[in-house]
């Protein structure tokens, strides 16, 4: 089982992504705000965090910049409408697994799953545990 945390104040926008992940043996936890997500990640180790493009008081990318220093082992994906080049520039050094498009399709979820699987294999995943 893989464990993912989705951070979004608009659950509907990422619901289809969540459903696809769940069909592929990913356990989904939802956080409505960045502060809730930060609190959750301090107590539980997730394999993946997915941030929506805009949260209550910051962008998803800004949230990833906050969470990476305190939890660098966490794999991150973020919804962003930036161009590929602008996203690369804005996220350099953060090691983001995947930029997700605003209009998510099933193939995006499949690609995210594939990338996560590759990373977890390379980093010798041992499973999510309570910290």
């Amino acid at each position, binding site marked *: 089982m893989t464990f993912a945390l989705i951070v979004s104040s608009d659950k509907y926008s990422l619901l289809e992504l969540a459903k696809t992940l769940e069909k592929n043996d990913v356990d989904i936890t939802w956080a409505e705000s960045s502060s809730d997500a930060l609190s959750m990640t301090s107590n539980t180790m997730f394999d993946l965090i997915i941030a929506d493009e805009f949260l209550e008081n910051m962008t998803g990318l800004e949230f990833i910049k906050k969470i*990476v*220093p*305190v939890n660098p082992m966490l794999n991150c994906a973020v919804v962003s409408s930036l161009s590929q080049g602008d996203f690369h520039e804005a996220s*350099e*050094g*953060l*090691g983001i697994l995947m930029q997700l498009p605003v209009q998510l399709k099933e193939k995006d979820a499949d690609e995210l799953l594939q990338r996560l699987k590759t*990373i977890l294999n390379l*980093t010798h995943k041992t499973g999510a545990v309570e910290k």
Partner: protein
Amino acid sequence: MENGRIAVPSAEKGGLDGTRSGHFGHCDVFTFIDVENGSIKEVSTIPNQSHVQGGCMVPVNLLAEHKVNALIVGGIGMRPLMGFKQAGIDVYHDSERPEIKPVVEDLIAGKLSQITDNQVCGGGGGGMNLA
């Protein structure tokens, strides 16, 4: 440094007389320098693992598994830097000299500085001039 293992991201075959790699995540091999009583005792190399997007923690795990105490980089992103910190691996910085030997000698002699958070790649910091 009196005792411990130094890792240097290296190009091609690596080794003490080899050259450093410009990006630690994409290096061909890691050169390990084992230091005992302030002197170089043994030099060895290991191949790097394949680099995939979001795979910043792969080399962190690899070097931690090989009991590395210090890493010398020319540039590094925030996420892997924080990962190395959490793994207890000190990260040193030299962005000018492409040769392995002089930077290793400087580290052993205490003349090399640890990288600071504002020197990381992205966010306006970092960068290096190695091959």
